[in-house]
């Protein structure tokens, strides 16, 4: 018996028919094709499925899709606006804060929430905030460095200009072809 649920996903209203038992993460991945949100466990430990729900980092495996009715959900796909990376995305790239990348969207979404609440966290505070996110590749060191770098970048932009930050453009996957002449 499916039921209808309406959510705001990355700024746009979406209505989907779901089984009452469907988890938000399954609806995001299977019905809305937002596969950047990952599933790494079945006990709400790993945090790979973390999204923002009304701006707060939330494990989308712990929320029934029906519970998300009327709420605003931001996934990793919605973070880079107009092809411009969010400062956290830039920082994870620059600080080598990822290897296989599977946990990365969850870490980035958790860090967005952290830096909203605490714009200048210590390393210890960052590590504490990451309690609910597991990474098996990096050993966390570069993730902490990335979040610290993003915090610095965000504070600087907020201090110097009211406009949105100007992070690096996403690199094209293939560079410019060389000029060819015979």
């Amino acid at each position, binding site marked *: 018996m499916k039921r209808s649920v309406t959510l705001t996903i990355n700024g746009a209203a979406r209505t989907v028919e779901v089984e009452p038992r469907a988890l938000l993460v399954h609806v995001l991945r299977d019905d809305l094709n937002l596969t950047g949100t*990952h599933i790494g466990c079945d006990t709400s430990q790993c945090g790979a499925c973390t999204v923002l729900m009304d701006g707060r980092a939330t494990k989308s495996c712990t929320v029934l899709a029906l519970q998300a009715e009327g709420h605003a959900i931001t996934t990793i796909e919605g973070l880079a606006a107009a092809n411009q990376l969010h400062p956290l995305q830039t920082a994870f790239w620059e600080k080598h804060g*990822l290897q296989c*990348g*599977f946990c990365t969207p969850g870490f980035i979404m958790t860090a967005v929430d952290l830096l909203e609440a605490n714009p200048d966290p210590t390393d210890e505070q960052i590590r504490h905030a990451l309690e609910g996110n597991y990474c098996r590749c990096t050993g966390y060191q570069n993730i*902490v460095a990335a979040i610290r770098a993003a915090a610095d970048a965000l504070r600087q932009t907020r201090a110097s200009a009211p406009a949105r930050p100007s992070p690096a453009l996403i690199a094209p996957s293939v560079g410019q072809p060389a000029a*060819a*002449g015979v």
Partner: protein
Amino acid sequence: MATLFGSGIKRREDPRLITGAATYTDDVKLPGLTYAAILRSPYAHATITRLDVAAARRAPGVLAVYTGADLKERLVPVPCAWNVPNCDLKVPPHPQLAYERVRYVGDGVALVVAETRAAARDALDLIDVEYEPLPAGVDPEKMAKPGAPTLHADVPNNIAFTWIVAGGDAERAFAEAEVRVKQRIVQQRLAPTAMEPRAAVASYNRGTGQLTLWATSQNPHIHRFLCSVMLQLPEHRVRVIAPEVGGGFGSKIPVYADEVLVALAAMDLGRPVKWTEDRSENYKATIHGRDHVEYVEMCGTRAGKITGLRTTVYAGLGAYASTVGPGIPTILHGLIYSGPYAIPNIHGTVYGVYTNGTPVDAYRGAGRPEATYLLERLMDLYALESGVDRIELRRRNFIPADKFPYTVATGITYDSGNYEPALDKALAMLDLGAFRAEQEKARTQGRYLGMGLASYVEICGSGPSQVAGAVGLGGGQYDSALVRVYPTGVVRVYIGGKPHGQGEETTFAQIVADEFGCPVENVEIVAGDTETTPQGWGTYGSRTTPVCGSAVKVAAQRVKEKAKKIAAHLLEANEADLEFKDGKFSVRGSPGEGKSFAEVALMANVAWNLPPGVEPGLEASAFFDPSNFVFPFGTHICTVEVNPDTGEIKVLRYLCVDDCGPHINPMIVQGQLQGGVIQGLGEALQEIVVYDDDGQLLSGTMMDYAVPKASQVPSIETAHTVTPSPVNPLGVKGTGEAGTIPAAATLVSAVCDALAPFGIRHIDKPLTPARVWAAIQAAGGTPNGASGNGKEAAR
């Protein structure tokens, strides 16, 4: 133009990963997709007395249900691909779904395919199975003894093999030695826990007979080969695609029953089928690592010259021989027993033992962390017994730098090495004198600090294919690259390896961009699809950069040789007079005139004006088979504080000095080491797969299996020495496993140093607070020389 080799440029794979645009296997969606779920045994050992799937077959949305009986005539059993020779290895049949008997918790019993994921899972509950439990055991030592429950009819005492490594005369060395130490060591079972669970999507075209299998694989060509064997399909009808792979650490090397089941179902139904394990399933059904019970001993002189090493190892294989399982505790373990030391007499006996546990296979380091751990524990014990300082003991036994290439007693030849500078550098980073003073002062305050170290050598970069064949591996160990230059001068490189986090899309692009003098953005590395990539053997064993990277280098050089011929023709010059600088061919002495690489690429591809006899196109492939393995090495040091009242350990500093030859991308090397060390510290401090006495898995979720968290681990201080390898054109050695290999030995050494006043010499990992506290209590509970009643009075 500055060289890119040696530059820590940002990774080229990252933009898709940080934006959610990457495609992992579970992200693959196809028209008409169906979903599979697997019913797994809840018993470690049982006879299936009744299996009724009728209700499941009738359930809404269910398309098919398979049992072991349905499949046993249709599928070749899951093969073992490392049949280690000269050890009487017995490999009993491993059916994709168990029939008659289940042999571990997680053994597959039935497969359901349904219209939705939920319908498939619901239908599992409708399958009626009656089990008659049988006696079970998971301890490899106990399971090898007479009277233990037997798993397989043709394997007496569950002993799959008895493998011996011997060099020199260990018996005589021990008889004549002045100092002997011995220790029983347990190296616990670990769960690799790649963050991405395993998954498979299969699609079959009945018209062409073509099967396409998306799979979480570190080695798609091995998957293609073994799936074609199991399904009895011609190999060219099987295409395996490993898309984005979310970590492996060895657990995605094996070819599993599950992947073949999905393929078979897709062929039967004519619709694509997807299966994705959940984490609880992963802990049961994806391979585990380590699982040794070891009796080890070392002997030598009072002056600290080690003369002999002897081991007896019970290596748990789990219920079946996994893809490369038998090779891990033998070839990858026993052959490296000498470590960085010249030990003239070595004898090891390894029993491979079937147990009622999940199959054991390669987990990061695979055999070499176990070897390093037992060797370094013995070195510390020998130092205590002989009175020779443990740092000095290592120095006295290092293979001297002028002896390379050096053949150790186990018969393998180390390519290059210079061990003392790495040790010296690590000690300098620590400031040992200052630490000892702090430790002394702390002890007077009732605080216990310790310093531990481990030196290691690993064998990796596998390897000469001839050697692989000689040691029973059912495949080659060369690797491959195809470098294709497009008319506009941009380049795609198709490789036989399958990186899954190690960054070779960046490092290999650096190699090629250097060769062609082009921007790194002009080079794309393509991996993972058997349809487009040349035959290769995958990414594991720290082999991709030394072996596949060398193939990339050689193929790029071949392309450049052809480009040079064309450039000479276009410039109407002799090839011998040309030089290549900043991406341009020109006649030496007239740098103004010239042809850029892109100009040559265009001409090669349009072929309007080529030298006589030169074919159009600009591409080349290479299959690189190294002349030897590579042997990275280093020394790790860590300092800890142990709270004797609670057994808690705080890692104060962790320093590593590793030598993997020259770094193509230092940022990536550092990342590999940081992550590797933390995995090793997880092994040392908290990770353990726990079964009860009946083989019931107690650590079956992430709530129970203690993967290290950010708040639990230290930052790692990394440094390097650089000793190039002579066996590949890049001079590189592997670095994917280097962090893990000595980490557990280093940490345990530090804790034992901290607890030396309590008379503690060894504690089996993982050093959980409970274990450390218990060890302190067992040792008497009070430090020597402290006020109080001393050791004896505490109990």
